[in-house]
Each structure stands twice: as structure tokens, then as C-alpha cells.
């Protein structure tokens, strides 16, 4: 077990926990960026450098920027963080925490161990992914494009309504 890997993993988990416990949204976003970056490190360690790059560029770059923009537009202020505090009383944590813990425990319990000969480590390059994407899974790419298009259209539609509402 690599120390760096351990570090990255713990940063990831801690970051995630921080995300769900922050009161101020921008803080949570920053923690989320940290989580994602550390996750990217783990991905690199898994030999998936292409995925890691996408993680950094798209997730940590594009999507998080989107969050930041929205939070800026929401114009949140002090009353909001106070309300968040009101909502985040420990009592509220009991049930969900318990449920999440049970799920986690069950998942871990049924995970078991994957024995068997592990393949010799070899990184999967963007080339392989590309071949696969536009070979066997070309139809899925198309579906994904449809999905993106649908998202685009619906986001535009909802946004336009907002403009009209104003």
C-alpha cells in the first residue's frame, strides 16, 4: 500500500465528509473540489490517466465552476448560513447517518474478496478508451449525446422560464 495512495484516499473521504457538513455553500464547493482532485490522484494510480484528466478538467473544472456561478447568482448571505445551522442540528443526523452506516456496512459485508490472479498492471491509455468508445460503444456515445442534448434543452427551457418569470 502506497503512502501517497493512503493519503489521497483519506483526503477524499475527509473532503467528502466536509462537503456534507459545511454550512456555507462556497466552502462545500471548495471541499468538493479537493475531494475530486484527490480522487483524480487515485485514478492516476489506477492507471487511468485519461479518466483522471477528465475528472480534473470537467468535474473539478467545469461542473464546479457551474456550482460557483449558481451560488453567486443565488446571492446567499448570513441568514442562509444561520438557517443551515438550524437545519444541521445533531438530531437531524441520527436517522440518515444510521441508514447510511447500515448501507455501508452491508455493502462492505457482501463485497467479499476478489482473489485470483491479478493481471499485471498496465495503464489503460486514452487510445484504448477511444478505440473502445468509438468501436463497440459508439451507440452508447450517441445515447450520451442525446442525453446531453436533452439536458441542454431542458436547462435552457427552465432558464428561459425564469427569465420570463422576471
Amino acid at each position, binding site marked *: 500500500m502506497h503512502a501517497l495512495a493512503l493519503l489521497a484516499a483519506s483526503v477524499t473521504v475527509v473532503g467528502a465528509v466536509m462537503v456534507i457538513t459545511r454550512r456555507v455553500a462556497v466552502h462545500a464547493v471548495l471541499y468538493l473540489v479537493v475531494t475530486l482532485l484527490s480522487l483524480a490522484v487515485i485514478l492516476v494510480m489506477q492507471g487511468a490517466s485519461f479518466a483522471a484528466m477528465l475528472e480534473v478538467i470537467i468535474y473539478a473544472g467545469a461542473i464546479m465552476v457551474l456550482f460557483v456561478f449558481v451560488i453567486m447568482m443565488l446571492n446567499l448571505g448570513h441568514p442562509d448560513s444561520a438557517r443551515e445551522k438550524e437545519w444541521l442540528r445533531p438530531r437531524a443526523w441520527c*436517522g*440518515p447517518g444510521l*441508514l*447510511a452506516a*447500515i*448501507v455501508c456496512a*452491508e*455493502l462492505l*459485508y*457482501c463485497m467479499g474478496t476478489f482473489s485470483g490472479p491479478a493481471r499485471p498492471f498496465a495503464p489503460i491509455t486514452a487510445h484504448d478508451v477511444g478505440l473502445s468508445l468509438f468501436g463497440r460503444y459508439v451507440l452508447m456515445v450517441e445515447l450520451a449525446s442525446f442525453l446531453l442534448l436533452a439536458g441542454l434543452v431542458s436547462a435552457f427551457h427552465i432558464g428561459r422560464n425564469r427569465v420570463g418569470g422576471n
Partner: protein
Amino acid sequence: MGEILLPLLILCPLAASMIVSVSAGRMGACAIGTVACTGVGISAVISIILSITLLSGPPAGVLQVTLWPWMHIAGFSADIAFMLDRVSMVMILVVTIVGLLIHVYAAGYMRDDPGIARFFGCMTLFVAAMLVLVLASDLLCLFIGWEGVGLCSYLLIGFWYNDPANTAAARKAFYMTRMGDVALLCGLLLLATATGSLRIGAVLAAVTNGQLAPSGVNLAALFILVGALAKSAQIPFQTWLPDAMAGPTPTSALIHAATMVTAGIYLIARLHDLFAMATPIMALTAILGTLTLLMGACTALVQSDLKRILAWSTISQLGYMFLALGCGVWQAALFHLMTHAFFKALLFLTAGAVIMRTGHEQDIFRLGGLRHAMPGLSAAFAVGASALAGLPLVTAGFYSKEMILSGVWHVHFGLTREWTLSGHPLWGIALLGAFLTALYIFRCVFIVFCGKKQGTSATGRTSRLMSIPLGCLCFLSLCGGVIEMPDTLPPLHLFSTLLDPKTPLSHADEPIWLVLAGALAPLAGLGVAWVLWGRATPVMHEIPGQAAIIRLARTGWGMDALYDRVFVQPFRLLTWLTHHDVLAHAITATGRLTQAVSGRIFQARTGFLDILSIWGSRGTGWMAYLLGQLDNGRVRWYAAWIAGGLCAGLAMAVLS
């Protein structure tokens, strides 16, 4: 030439009818009368030419014209074909000449009627139809004319349709003759089935060859007899003719006295070979004829309506003709038909003129003493009356009646081997009828023309147009009969020789008192009539006492009421009862029943479903309430439920 003239003979009145009908409202009364008279007049001329041609030919010569095939089909053929032999020659002469005279008269009589176009349209159409009837060489073709004259008769009786009684009379006439027509049609069907053709010659040949079983012959003769009886208003169909007097008087003269009603006599005379084979039917004809003549004479004796007297006298005279036909002396029947056409037309036309001039008064007791006001008409009526009564030697009626009487005397009906019917009783009744005829007609003459002057006053003059035909008819009534004389007198048999050159009627052995009796009976009638009504202080002013029998006789022996009770009322009742289509009701009722039943079933089903649904909805409601509690619309709860579900699913996977 005959081939052209014969169709032309029919075509002329037809064309006149068409012209008159189509131009209704555009031509004046005068023009209409002229057209109609011209049409019939040309026909008369043609018929005279044709008769001369025929008479100059061989004795048995027949002019046959087949215009076109009518129906030719396997097993049956009929043609539109005409034939002129000596029987039909007599008829066309009568129809066209008497018809012409009556048309001329009518042109004057109907001058002021607004419906004159309709009148002449029907009259000329009638002449055409009657000519078709008498000229047809095919029985089916004859049937066209037969129904055609019936239709014209219907239209003319109901001519003044504003009075419901007139149209009712018209309908009655048509219905009663229609029944006869249907019987005739049955006879035709029978003959056509047996012989495959309805050509008169072929039918008669087939019958005389024995192609038809005797029962078939009898049946056919019976059917045809019924048709003839209905057309000629004999018992039991006599009731329509008196009512038919509702029409204009020229109509009564032409259709209901001179021509149409004689169609039955003509038909039987035409088919005399067929009837000769059917002895029972012959006897039936004779008996019915005798009954009718007696009944007609008796009824005429008590009538008070001038035209009705004449109508009943027509029935009675037609009875004479049927008697003659029944006795096999069809020549005598035709002879009487001819003379009857003359004198009855004369009587009707004179009566019409009288009625017209006295302001449409038809009751003889309200007329009277008209001798002075209208001497010409009185003379004409007297001539007609004497001809009808058959005053000996000077009138045509005497010779024709004498011919019938002598024919009846000699007849014997061999009905079965043992039972024969002699003609003598029939002769006796006929002689009684002759006496009664003179009695009733001179009663009429004396009351109307002699006697005291009554309230009604005669106005105007009889126009020239009307008096000329009367003169011609007077002449014919007096002298039309001398072409045939009894053997006791100079034996002249022009008429019977003309009709049947092979077997002229000759009764050289007949006793002289036979003729004498025939001559004396009318004279006796005249005498009695003079005693009763003719003297200055008549024995009888009115019909005495209104005895029940007389009242009965005045209504035609209650036959009308009887038919009304027996046929008309039940028919009306039944039609009223079945006014709504029974079958339709039955089917509708079935439908309703089905609907009701299905409605019940539906209700029952819905009731069951109601219970089910009430309970079901209650249960569903509870469930929905419960579920609704889960479904509170909060996203986080949904997520929690998903997580819980995942939890449970994993737990199951783990624990199993």
C-alpha cells in the same frame, strides 16, 4: 288500306284526347269541343269506310292488323293486334257514330263548364279505349281497353269532384268493376296457361278442339262471366250503375248506357264458342240475366229520379242481352245492344237536355207538363220511350226484343242428362219484363211531359248543337230495327246474316202468338201506364203509401246496404284495426322486450358492481391514505425510502 285505317281509327280519338289534355287552359271551350268532335268524327268516317270495305269482301273476311309483338316469351305470346270482323264492325259503328252524336251534343251541353278540357280529354280517351276493346284480336289487348274504359268511367263519374258523393260513386264503380276485371284476368290466365296464347281465334280453336278439359272451360267461362257481369252491372254487381249517374249526362249516355256497359255483352258474344261449350255457365248467364231484367224493371218502376230510372232501365235491358247470350242467341244480344245504344242514348240525351233546361231538377215529380214548354224534347223522349218499351212495328226496340224473345222460347239447357232447363219460364219472365218496361218508361213520360205543370219552369232553348244529335238518334231509334224481322213478319235476317252468314237464325216453326204476345205486352204496359198516370186526373199522383216493399225497391232492394254491411264496413273496420302495421308492432315489441330485459340485466349487473365498487373503493381509500402518508412529496424522504429499500434488498441478499 285497312292496315293503316284500323290503327288510325283508334289513334284519332287518342290524339284528340292528348291535344285536349295537353292544351288544357289554353283553348276555348269551342275549340276543345271541335277538336274532340273532329277526332271522333274522323273515327266515325273511317269506321264507315272500313265497314264498306269489309262488307264488299268475302262473307267471312276478317281484317287483321298486328302492330307489334307485345310479350313473346317461352310458353306465351301476345301481340298488340287488331282485327275487324263483322261483330266488331257492328260495335265500332255503334261506338263511333253514337259517340260522335254524343260528343256533338256534349259540346253544347258542357259549353260553360270550367272543366270542359278534362271532360273531353276523358271522353275521347274513352272512345279510344272502347275501340281498343272492340277491335282487339288478342284478349290481353282487349283487357287494355277493358280497364281503360273503366278508368275513364271512374274519371267521368267523379267529374264534379267537389261533391264527395260523386267521387264516392266513382270509386264504387271502379272497385266493383275492378273485382270483375280481376276475375276476367283469372280467366285470361287460365286460358293463357292452357293454350299459350290469348289470340281470340287461337283460344276458340283450342277450346273447340277439346284442348281444354270441360271443367277448365266451365271455370274459364265462369271467370269471364263474372268479369262481364261486373262491367255490365248485372246481379250481383248491379249497384254501381245507378250511382254512376252522378257524372255529366253525356257521360251517362255514352258510357253508362250505350257503350261501356255493353262491353260485357260484347265479350261474351265474342267468345260465344267458348260459352257454347259451357252449358251450366250458359244457364247461369240466362238466369242471372232474367233476374236482373226483372229486378231492374221493378226498381225503375218506383224510382223518382229521372236519370236513375234510366239507369235501372239500362240494367234491365242489359239483363235482356245477358238472357239472350245465355240462350245462345248472341246475334240477338248484339242486335239489342245496337238498338239499345240508339234509344238509350236518345233517352239520356233528352233527359239531359230537359234537366239542363229545368235548372238541374231530376225529380220527376217536380217536373211535369213539359210537353208545352219543350215539344221537341218531349217528342224525342217519347220516341225513345217507345223504342225502349218496344212498341210494335214502328220502333227498333220491338224487333230486337222480339228476336231475343223468340230465341229464348226455343232454348233448352241440357245441364245434366236427366235435368234440362227449358227456356219457357225465362220467356215468360222476359215477357213480364217487357210489360214492366213499357209501364215504367211511360210512367216517366206521362209524369214528366203530360200532366199538370209543376213549379219548375223551363228556360232557354235547346241549342242546335244539342238538338241535331237528338234528331239523328230519333231516326235511328225508330228505323234502326227494320234490318231484322221475325219470321212471322217478312222474314228479313240482314243482321243475323251479317254476323254469322253460315247459320242464320230462323225459327220458321215458331207459333204466331209468340210474336203477338211480344207485341201486346208493351202495348198493355202503355195502356196501364196511361190509366195510372196519363189521364187528366191520374189514378196515382205519387208513389202510393210508401209501402215497405216500395221503399226497399227504391233503394235497389237494399243491396247497397247489404254490401255495405257485409263487405265495406268489415273492410273498413279491419283496415282501421290494422291501421298500424301489426308485424311492425310485433317486431318493435320484441325489440322493446329485449331492451327491457337487457335493462334489467344491466341494472342487476350494475347493482352487483356497485357493491363491489363501494367496498373496493373503501379499501382502496384506506390503502391510498396509507400510501399517501408515505408519498408526502418530499424528495429527501424519497431518497430515504430508496436507501431503505437498498438496505433491505442487500439484507436479503446477505442473509439468504
